């Protein structure tokens, strides 16, 4: 079964919102959130056993987060990225740890940088950022420049021995 046939089979079973081929072996499939786990499980049974990573994209204008699950199949040498969108105002999504145990840390990463809660994933404490005290930093409405200005302030630089510095042209 090639990738095109598989996608049409997925379309029969699940509510696929959109599909896009980058090339014959790499595709992106959008699916409704409540069917994502079933689709992931089914794809895993077909040989998409390798979860490359989980990405999150902040579509702030649509008030939505997009979760992208990148799967790779070593046998058919093809990649499917399953995408789903969740609300940005109260971002919750069930974990996929029971399908891919290694997702634990990817979900923790997304929780830290985007603030998405993964229900069922027990460990959600920060992984990278220590003493973080603002909104999750990868969100589009977080401005790193503003944050660092507020947090650290403008420093007053004084050049020691400034009087002794000879400007160009002053040399005589």
């Amino acid at each position, binding site marked *: 079964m090639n990738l095109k046939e598989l996608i049409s089979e997925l379309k029969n079973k699940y509510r696929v919102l959109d599909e896009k081929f980058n090339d014959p*072996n790499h595709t992106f499939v959008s699916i409704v959130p409540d069917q994502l786990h079933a689709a992931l499980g089914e794809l895993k049974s077909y040989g998409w056993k*390798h979860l*490359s990573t989980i990405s999150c994209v902040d579509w702030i204008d649509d008030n939505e987060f997009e979760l992208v699950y990148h799967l790779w199949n070593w046998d058919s040498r093809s990649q499917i990225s399953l995408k789903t969108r969740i609300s940005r105002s109260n971002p919750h999504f069930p974990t996929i740890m029971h399908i891919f145990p290694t997702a634990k840390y990817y979900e923790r990463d997304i929780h830290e940088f985007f603030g998405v809660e993964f229900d069922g994933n027990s460990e959600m404490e920060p992984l990278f950022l220590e003493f973080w005290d603002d909104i999750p930093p990868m969100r589009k409405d977080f401005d790193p420049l503003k944050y660092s200005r507020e947090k650290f302030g403008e420093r007053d630089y004084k050049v020691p021995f400034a009087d002794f510095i000879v400007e160009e042209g002053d040399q005589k």
Partner: protein
Amino acid sequence: MKEFELFFGPNHPGMHGNFSVHLRVDGDTVVKAKPVPGFLHRGFEKLMERRLWIQNLALIPRICVPEPDINEMVYAMAVEKIAGIEVPEKAHWIRTLILELGRIAAHLFSIGGIGGATGLYTFPYWATADRDSVLDIFEHISGARIYHMYIIIGGVRKDLPEGIDSLIRETMDYLESRIPEYIDLVMKNRIIQTRLRGKLVLTREMCEEMCITGVGLRATGVDYDIRKYDPYAAYEWVDFDIPVGEDGDAFTRGYLKLLEIQQSIRIIRQVLDKMPKKGPVNVKLPGNALKWRIPPGEAYAHVESSRGEYGYYVVSTGETTPYRVHVRGASYPQGLYGIEKYLPGTRIEDVPLWLGTMDVCPPEIDR
């Protein structure tokens, strides 16, 4: 016996890089292991959203210090996929050459690290000195030793300099002559045999559960390598083998890296033989590079780094900067989930071997 907590890293002789593993130990046996990354978090993904497409080329090699070229390659591949750019043939060959040189340098660094963890200190000295000969080639080609910024969107920055052919061939001959010496010094050494054989054994099921790629997976008897399974650059046009091991232990992983260096030398020689002598090495994107707009779209590109699958997910909305770039560091699974799950039960002295032979690279985990 009473359990103790041991902070293994970031300042520990057995730890390479800014990474820490918090261990709970019962005597010498690890009871619990908790990875603590974040010492090198520089916020690259956020920075990239605020930089132009061309500016990012100078930023991304810094994500992975020992093997920077893969970042440039995979970023270029993802953007080329979105924008539908066809790369000239010669650029594919040069990219292959750069990537394989980078692989040799990274492998030498990483197997040298095994010597540091086992007390065989001749090995890191030899490996680092030999890696330097590869860096010399990089300096001739790109002007830089570590961060080359040589592979760009649409090809490579410049053609290879004249006379580089003989330098590369000489270095490859030298490196090839060193491999039997490495086998004599290291692989047949009693210390290495005792400390690595049968240690930290992974089965294929464990690797599939962790979604590990690279040498860790290939040491369990499968030849999964993205260069063969999803070919990019010029890998389709060259002949090479994928070294595969059976035992899945630390020794096999170390040995496979040496064998991979041999294969890389083979690839580089073929590239030099088969590469077209003339032709363009890049396609210019239309307009001013400071105003490049990549058409809206998304792509996930991946390459085989020295540590496994290295991927970039790039989203463009047609602006002058990327909308989102997500980096899939090759050592993410073994460096976080693998440490937590499979280090308990091993001994303290096996912890640096896990980090060394499974290739845990902290900068690409932290990003």
